[in-house]
């Protein structure tokens, strides 16, 4: 496989900076929880259902506790306490706590007592993740699994039943992974909608039932084609960890999940995001889901030549956070993208350099390679060629997961035909250039090598700076994606809560003990 020279000491120095950066934030994370985390715990304990307006019980429950100022003890404490005090089940306990006049959030039994009461439910919660994981693995073992670069396509009709049709069509046409893009506004919703949904703009809501519908379709496609069709969705936004949990129990294979994306691109509060990502990743690690980070997005707002190093720096940080949440490298699908101005001389060499560099530095990671989007226009013919070059760089540099470009990128979320043609083109190029990467050696000191060196150098410099100023401040001054955010600004800040000294979260404890 082709290589560019990578200074190992520099890489290690980057990892060391990233470790410091993450440790600083991790200390904060370990002392806090959020309403999102607690709703996830509630769901894991089996709290289900929603009221007539669609407010999930998990929300009603946690909101009430929050109103009482008692989220810091952990929802597990309150549920455990209710069980101690006679509730017949977690569900009953949750309903009581959410709606009953009798609910008491004042002083009560000790955390140890509550923990005891909920211990069986804790075991069940974990068993549910584990058995879904086993089922996923059995299913994969029983079928052919695609070879890298895995062909990843999105569906986004807004209607989950149409999405299912499209997902199966994608499987037929050769996709390895299918993602149902979320509706535009969902990441800002502080709850996960219930049931199947048929109306969404720019995508379809992520709901547990929708996950099931697509899983069923993907399983059918798997049986039909003999090749395992993986499913992915977004563990992002204000319900990051809840969705991670739903994905875990519904056998999703991957999740878009990034330590900083929500902050930068959805203006979600930093503290909230950091805490949520941690818990989401603990679940993901246990479940054996592959995450996909979102560094590609930086290049949609910042220039891909000037700011290439911010992608690399961010990958080191995402890696450091992921490691602190127990993920092994094989589950870390770090994201990067082919977003250089295509009309720039030698843009392809720059893309090759970056792709190669990331591939080598994160050699055990299932790197996620994103197609051109920003410079796409409605000239669908040309757009198709642009994607072809992306496919070529992908196979040449051995990317793991290739989110295939769509020729209609600048027009609409993909039609069935767009996806078919995208898959056909990828199949052609991945076949025609199968061993191109093995064949190429880069000219010493040439454009590709120099560019790779430059990007690593700059990433190193940036990480040193971020380490000095802390990640909080670095984001504050726009270090990533040219976007600036403040520590207490953004959505969801009110859902951040300091942990009580006796904070109880037995599920997190189990997860923290296990390694993925």
């Amino acid at each position: 496989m082709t290589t560019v020279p990578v200074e190992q000491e520099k890489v290690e120095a980057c990892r060391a900076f990233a470790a410091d950066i993450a440790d600083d934030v991790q200390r904060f994370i370990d002392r806090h929880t959020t309403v999102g985390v607690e709703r996830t715990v509630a769901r894991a304990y089996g709290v289900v259902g929603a009221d007539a307006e669609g407010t999930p019980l998990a929300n009603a429950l946690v909101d009430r506790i929050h109103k009482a100022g008692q989220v810091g003890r952990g929802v597990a404490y309150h549920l455990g306490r209710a069980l101690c005090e006679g509730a017949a089940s977690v569900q009953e306990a949750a309903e009581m706590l959410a709606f009953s006049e009798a609910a008491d959030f004042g002083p009560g039994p000790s955390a140890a007592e509550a923990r005891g009461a909920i211990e069986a439910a804790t075991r069940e919660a974990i068993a549910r993740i584990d058995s879904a994981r086993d089922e996923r693995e059995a299913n994969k073992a029983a079928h052919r699994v695609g070879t890298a670069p895995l062909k990843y396509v999105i569906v986004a009709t807004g209607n989950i039943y149409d999405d299912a049709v499209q997902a199966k069509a994608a499987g037929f046409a050769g996709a390895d992974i299918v993602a149902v893009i979320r509706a535009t506004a969902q990441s800002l919703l502080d709850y996960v909608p219930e049931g199947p949904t048929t109306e969404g703009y720019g995508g379809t809501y992520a709901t547990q039932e929708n996950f099931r519908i697509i899983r069923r379709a993907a399983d059918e496609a798997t049986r039909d084609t003999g090749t395992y069709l993986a499913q992915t969705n977004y563990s992002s936004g204000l319900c990051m960890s809840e969705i991670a949990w739903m994905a875990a129990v519904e056998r999703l294979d991957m999740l878009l999940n990034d330590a900083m994306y929500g902050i930068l691109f959805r203006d979600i509060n930093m503290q909230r995001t950091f805490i949520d990502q941690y818990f989401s990743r603990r679940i993901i690690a246990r479940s054996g889901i592959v995450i996909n980070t979102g560094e590609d997005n930086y290049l949609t707002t910042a220039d891909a030549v000037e700011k290439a190093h911010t992608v690399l720096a961010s990958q080191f940080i995402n890696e450091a956070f992921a490691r602190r949440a127990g993920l092994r490298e094989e589950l870390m699908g770090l994201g990067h993208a082919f977003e250089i101005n295509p009309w720039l001389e030698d843009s392809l060499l720059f893309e090759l350099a970056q792709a190669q560099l990331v591939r080598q530095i994160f050699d055990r990671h299932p790197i996620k390679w994103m197609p051109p989007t920003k410079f796409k226009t409605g000239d669908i013919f040309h757009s198709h060629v642009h994607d072809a070059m992306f496919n070529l760089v992908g196979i040449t540099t051995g990317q793991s997961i290739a989110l295939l470009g769509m020729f209609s990128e600048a027009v609409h979320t993909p039609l069935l035909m767009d996806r078919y043609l995208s898959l056909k083109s990828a199949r052609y190029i991945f076949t025609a250039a199968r061993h191109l990467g093995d064949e190429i050696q880069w000219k010493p000191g040439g454009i590709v090598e120099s560019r790779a060196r430059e990007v690593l150098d700059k990433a190193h410099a940036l990480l040193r700076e971020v380490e000095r100023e802390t990640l909080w401040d670095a984001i504050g001054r726009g270090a990533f994606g040219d976007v600036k955010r403040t520590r207490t600004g953004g959505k969801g800040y009110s859902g951040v809560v300091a942990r009580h000294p006796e904070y109880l979260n037995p599920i997190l404890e189990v997860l923290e003990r296990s390694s993925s």
Partner: protein
Amino acid sequence: MGSMTQRNILRAYGDREGDGMVQMSFTLRILPGDRAREVAKRFAEAHGLREPLVTAMEQASREHTYFVVYGHSQHGVDTSDIEVEELAAQPLTRDQIEEQAKKLGRKIVVVGACTGSDAHTVGIDAILNYKGFAGEKGLESFKCIDAHNLGAQVENAELCEKAKALGADALLVSQVITQRNCHKENAAALVELATRQGFRDKVILLLGGPRIDHNLAVELGFDAGFGPGTKPITVASFLVERLVGRV
């Protein structure tokens, strides 16, 4: 029960049942701009596209602009009344063909050519020659067939002469060049010639080529037409069935 014909209207499918989404591209003699975009929209609307979206508008010459448009097509096709012979549907197997052909008591004589000024031999070779096409051997490889390939640039008159001399059961004509319908003229001329020479009814006339289909061939007076991707076995199967009957 009741014998109502069921109407079955097919509309285009983008990503939602019934959305009618189609894509068009075209060139107009106009320069890009707001006005040109409006013209392109109306042009698309004239074709029955609702809410057309002009996604590309690029100047392609000093006078022309190239457009890409998406829109929701209002049109549908009633498929219930479309009857088309699916020639390729279920060809006989090689063994069935040989078996069935025995009933004829002699070999089937076929004469093929790419006619007129058309020099594209690859298609007719694919059908006739031993080597065949995409791994499938040509008519020459059938024991029951005596295949003569006259090659390309063969005049209709020459083809008819040869056919008569060889006592052909079938004439296989390939037409690849189709600019301004020259293939149609040339093909029709052959049918006319064979008719004039009085042997039209004694032979099977097959027409093939990348822009040929069964309906077109029949319109032009041939017995059948074969389009892109035709396999030799489909042709052999058709011939045997015509000459000897279905298995």
